[in-house]
């Protein structure tokens, strides 16, 4: 593909163009990434990165997760600038144009490749659904009683979706908003 500044993904051998994310999408992505990154820094095991970064799940599947965590032992599979292993944890933030890919097409492939934990962040509903791999299928982890969510891969890490979206909404209020979630 041309180096034209556009981002592309390959799913089942089909190339698709990724639409540039919106300010809100990036705020959400950032608010999820920051505590993850801080946690990983603290435990000193692996690295967390945010899009765009190519993750090669299979010959016909090259994806760009919004946030990906690769533990220390698998960092060796990052080579030539690409990730050639299923990240242990992947976060996808739903946007208008990525909803179907994030909720149906990509999780099937992450599961097959062996990504242990998948977070589906829904800015419209202000929810974060956590699913973890049991054998080859994802099973939803219910949120904690207080509404927070806990990671299985990053054991001990707990996030509060309400606080995350409150921070996003605070920041969005300083922008000129149109009636659309991107």
């Amino acid at each position, binding site marked *: 593909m041309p180096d034209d500044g556009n981002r592309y993904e390959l799913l089942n051998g089909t190339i698709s163009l990724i639409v540039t994310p919106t300010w809100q999408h990036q705020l959400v992505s950032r608010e999820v990434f920051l505590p993850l990154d801080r946690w990983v820094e603290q435990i000193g095991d692996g690295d967390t990165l945010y899009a765009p970064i190519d993750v090669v799940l299979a010959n016909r599947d090259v994806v760009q997760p919004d946030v990906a965590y690769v533990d220390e032992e698998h960092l060796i599979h990052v080579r030539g600038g690409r990730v050639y292993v299923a990240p242990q944890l992947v976060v996808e933030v739903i946007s208008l144009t990525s909803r179907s890919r994030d909720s149906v097409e990509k999780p*099937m492939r992450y599961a097959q490749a062996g990504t242990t934990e998948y977070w*589906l962040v829904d800015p419209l509903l202000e929810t974060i659904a956590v699913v973890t*791999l049991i054998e080859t*299928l994802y099973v939803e982890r219910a949120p904690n009683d207080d509404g927070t969510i806990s990671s*299985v891969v990053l054991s001990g890490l707990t996030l509060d979706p309400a606080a995350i979206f409150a921070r996003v909404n605070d920041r969005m209020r300083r922008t000129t908003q149109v009636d659309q979630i991107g």
Partner: protein
Amino acid sequence: MVANARRATIADLDAMPDDGRIYELLNGEISMAAAPTWRHGVTVLAIRDVLHAWVRPSRLGVVQVAPIDVILDDDNVVQPDVIFVERSQLSSAASGRYIGAPTLAVEVVSPTSRGRDSVQKSQRYARAGIREFWLVDPDNRTFDIYTLVDDFYQPVPLLTDGRIESVVLPGLIFDPADIFAEVDDQTP
């Protein structure tokens, strides 16, 4: 990874109370969902009507709506909102439940189950070999049809006029906007 003492089975599912909630078995775990909302129910019936109107005159098969247990395997018993079973597969329902993969399954998502429905169900339906999957979100007015290609669901593109055509029921072409209009008309 999971600290369950033991895996739940179909027998455990049968033992759940008849309290109006929806119980399913996902990977050996009992999963509970609240009874659906008015809008959800109206959407299910609108979709059922479209399918039924198409398959009934030619007796192509049977359309069913939830609650009906679909036993995908010993660990996964689900209740899709609507299923279509082609006539040659009807014997799979002889026990009173449907055993195996229906030809088509429809999930109408509600805000609280959106993540679960789309991620968990699509993956299980694909693995079970359900050839077509409709994912409908009446709150956000999205209507997606997926077809099984090499064990993965691939979205079926809209026709140029905005309508969409089923793959397992070729010739069944409709406009999702008409379905949502029908839903709006019956929702307070």
